[in-house]
């Protein structure tokens, strides 16, 4: 099957028509249903990823060990195709069938950015600040909760943002395995011929891309506001360098 006939305009037109049909939004399994499932899967996966990665990353950063493990884990998960992990977890049947089986796989891919940023954030705390806190007689736990954690907030928030965008983007692939989420719209479109489904494929792609960019933008604002004011200007420059190491494939 070669390039389809019909031209660029036709498909955009079809996509607009498809998006303009209210039934495509409100039908069972329509856009609103798919969006709800998509957000629920993604939210659960992000919660699990945070619950695992934050304590481990913060603790490793606090005791100053485990950096090798953090890097190895990031690199290791990068080599695992999302599609493969989704399929393995689905077929193993450990997480039930249907959309829910995507949650553990998505959570695993959300861990590396949160872990790496929590670790780096705590490690990057100025040694002099550390010494000062120690000199004031703070215990290890006090230093962690009152000094290190607040100073690491920009990093931790940036890590959660990266993970969230990645999870929302990757949740699209759930459609390829067990179904569920906005990926279903694209998947169903590919099930038709391109001539029939082209518009729907394009519409689904647009919805997913907009959602990912929207989550990225909204969380960018959230990160800005949870960052303590004095840290805001410095953060921008620093996050760039951390991002190279933490952003994994989609």
């Amino acid at each position, binding site marked *: 099957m070669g390039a389809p006939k019909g031209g660029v305009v036709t498909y955009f037109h079809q996509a607009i028509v498809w998006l303009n049909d209210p039934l495509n939004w409100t039908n069972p399994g329509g856009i609103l249903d798919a969006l709800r499932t998509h957000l629920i899967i993604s939210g659960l996966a992000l919660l699990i990823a945070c619950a695992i990665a934050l304590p481990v990353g913060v603790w490793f950063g606090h005791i100053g060990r485990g950096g090798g493990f953090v890097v190895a884990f990031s690199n290791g998960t*990068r080599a695992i195709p999302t599609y*493969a992990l989704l399929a*393995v977890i689905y077929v193993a049947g450990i997480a039930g069938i249907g959309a829910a089986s995507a949650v553990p796989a998505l959570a695993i891919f959300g861990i590396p950015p949160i872990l790496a940023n929590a670790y780096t954030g705590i490690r990057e705390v100025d040694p002099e600040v550390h010494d000062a806190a120690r000199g004031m007689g703070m215990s290890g736990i006090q230093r962690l909760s009152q000094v290190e954690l607040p100073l690491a907030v920009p990093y931790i928030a940036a890590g959660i943002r990266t993970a969230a965008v990645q999870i929302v983007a990757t949740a699209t692939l759930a459609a390829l395995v067990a179904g569920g989420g906005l990926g279903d719209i694209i998947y169903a479109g590919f099930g038709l011929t391109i001539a029939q489904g082209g518009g729907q494929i394009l519409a689904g792609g647009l919805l997913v891309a907009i959602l990912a960019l929207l989550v990225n933008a909204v969380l960018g604002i959230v990160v800005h506001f949870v960052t303590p004011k004095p840290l805001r200007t410095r953060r921008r420059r620093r996050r760039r360098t951390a991002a190279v190491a933490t*952003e994994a494939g989609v």
Partner: protein
Amino acid sequence: MSFLGSPALAFQQSASNPWFSWHYIQQNADQILTDTRFHFITTIEAVALAMVVAIPLAVLCYWVRPLGAPILALSGVLYTIPSLALFAFLAPFVGIGVTTILIGLVIYALLLVIQNTLTGLQQVPEDVRDAARGMGYGRFGMLWHVELPLALPGIITGIRLATVSTVALLTVGVIVGQGGLGQLIFSGLHTNLNRAAIATGTILCVALGLALDVVIALFGRLVTPWARRRAAS
């Protein structure tokens, strides 16, 4: 052309469904070899194309500072778009085939190579550039003989990251029937949830990614002998 059924409908476990089966591998040796070869070749093609586009772009960002931010921002936006959505944008225009996959993979590899090449170039010490200028190197001479060689560690890092993520991402090509080893996983999902097929595809895919990573890392060590000497002394 409805080759995409729903795997959920095929949820009938056969009596024995092992994760690893010699029988499966022997029966499907040809298919496995074909898929592996396709996966390997397409990855190499995608990364090579990405390098051809990304390294000049990184040099451009390096020379013309104001261009850096918009180019990085644009490739960042492209990187945020989910792979399935990107293939969805391309498929109606490019058709169902390997070209769609290749374009998508190149786009995702771009950001990684640009970012790391740029980082590598920016780490060239100013006094080294001064010395090169004093020796009479022009802009291109300095780039070719001084800056790019010194940026090699960054470039190699970018290529490694791009290669590993390309190998993983290629599996999503199943949506247009061009997923390489992903096709094994796909066929496993769609034939009574055959675990052996899924495990074989997964393991080969991870192995291919890690093997390519090691090969490129070794190549990187070979072409930057000074980095090792400096670390040793």
